[in-house]
């Protein structure tokens, strides 16, 4: 039996469904390509209620989260969020998270849907020596992500705060169409946007989440808003060069080879996995996560061999067709000596060798697309 989110009734009537991380979720409504383009050119909205959410409070909350994660929670200002990793003792990535620091000493930890149980067990297991209170609200909070260059203007019509006061990664308690929410200026598409936690909405009485979903659809109508499924979500995050947990990063990936060093703060003090990661750093990072762009025709997929001079040197971990680039893109791991930009490699797809080259992230031109766009 698949799990459902608070917004399932809407998805069931309007989308093609897919099983993902134990949930019955929308794969696409109108189609993956038009949904991707809505987010890149206007605005799109996603149900991300399947993700996990845990409130962490108490005197030791900061110290505790700093011990668990690789990024520096002590550097986090109130009403601001950060991307971080939690690692196992061997330095492998257990999950990637966003931690919101709310008013006072309260934090909201947001984790991947597939890691809900695993992460909560890990949070509990490591909480014993700290004065912290954990509250798993995954099933009592719905979550809607609104993304694209017109996302902020769309939500501004409904939000009871001035959104221009929020910079990227800011977060805040606020009412949206009268409903109590936590907003964060974050996302998984590379675009500007907001992730909206709708508080206190149970699965048995989801009407307030459904109402807000429909209110946002109405507010975005003149901007061409589209409901978007997991199909477009996967393409958009890959175009932005963002890792998907379970595919691009796993418990056997270390943060440095995954090129996530920007959230690993060795100088902040001890954290779980630090010694192992440092040891790997000293030994030298043998392989790296790279972006791969198909230079000819064809679409790479995940788990395809990467070859150099006919020899297998690695494998892709994600691959798709990019509508804005009109071509195939992939992510994968190659030995460090082949990880430089413009390195030519081959990807074996469906018995054929495609020509590709190593490129940087994001895959698109950041002057034309994404939150740094110049227009």
């Amino acid at each position, binding site marked *: 039996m698949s799990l459902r989110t608070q917004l399932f009734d809407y998805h069931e009537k309007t989308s093609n469904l897919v099983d993902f991380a134990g949930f019955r979720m929308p794969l696409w409504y109108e189609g*993956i*390509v038009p949904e991707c383009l809505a987010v890149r050119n206007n605005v799109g909205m996603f149900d991300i209620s399947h993700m996990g959410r845990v409130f962490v409070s108490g005197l030791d909350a900061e110290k505790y989260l700093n011990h668990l994660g690789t990024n520096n929670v002590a550097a986090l200002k109130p009403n601001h969020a950060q991307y971080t990793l939690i690692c196992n003792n061997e330095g492998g990535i257990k999950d990637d998270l966003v931690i919101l620091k709310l008013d006072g000493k309260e934090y909201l930890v947001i984790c991947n849907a597939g890691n809900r149980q695993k992460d909560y067990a890990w949070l509990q297991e490591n909480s014993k020596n700290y004065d912290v209170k954990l509250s798993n609200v995954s099933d009592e909070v719905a979550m809607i992500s609104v993304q694209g260059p017109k996302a902020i203007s769309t939500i501004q019509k409904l939000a009871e705060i001035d959104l221009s006061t929020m910079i990227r990664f800011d977060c805040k308690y606020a009412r949206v169409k009268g409903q109590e929410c936590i907003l964060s200026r974050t996302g998984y598409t590379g675009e500007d946007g907001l992730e909206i936690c709708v508080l206190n909405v149970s699965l048995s009485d989801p009407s307030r989440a459904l109402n807000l979903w429909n209110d946002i659809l109405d507010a975005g109508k003149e901007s061409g808003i589209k409901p978007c499924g997991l*199909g477009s979500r996967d*393409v958009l995050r890959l175009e932005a060069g963002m890792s998907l947990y379970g595919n691009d990063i796993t418990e056997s990936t270390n943060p440095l080879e995954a090129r996530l060093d920007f959230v690993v703060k060795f100088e902040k003090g001890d954290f779980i996995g630090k010694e192992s990661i440092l040891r790997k750093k000293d030994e030298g990072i043998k392989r790296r996560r790279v972006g791969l762009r198909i230079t000819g025709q064809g*679409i790479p*997929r995940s788990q395809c061999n990467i070859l150099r001079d006919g020899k297998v040197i690695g494998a892709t971990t994600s691959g798709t*067709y990019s509508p804005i680039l009109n071509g195939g893109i992939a992510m994968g791991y190659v030995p460090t000596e082949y990880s430089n930009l413009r390195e030519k490699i081959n990807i074996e797809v469906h018995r054929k060798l495609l020509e590709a080259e190593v490129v940087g992230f994001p895959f698109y031109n950041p002057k034309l697309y994404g939150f740094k766009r110049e227009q």
Partner: protein
Amino acid sequence: MKTEYDIPEGLYYTKEHEWLKVENGKCRMGITDYAQKALHEVVFVDLPKRGTKVSRMEPLGTVESVKAVSDYFAPISGEIIEVNDVLSSKPDLVNKNPYEDGWIAIIKPASLEAEAKELMNSIKYSELLKSITKK
């Protein structure tokens, strides 16, 4: 969502969802309406090469959507004498018009009469689709 599938009369069909149309002894082929709807949003068609000799039900290439990739097969044995190059720049023709502008290749058949018996007509193919979509 109940979906209806277009199954024109007068064409031959395979169980792998290719269609075949006999035109003056030559055979035009493509994928069926059911196949294009199952794939949705075709973004790439890997075309066979002209002059290639093929055997019946040999994979000819792939049709790919954003999420999925599917092989397509030669409905009959023979030689590829023409391919629809337009699909290189407009792969979505397979979605828009799978039986006309979205055709994939023309095969000069080696033994059409014998092999045609192995193919389905529109009535048999529609029965196959009913049995598949009932599940």
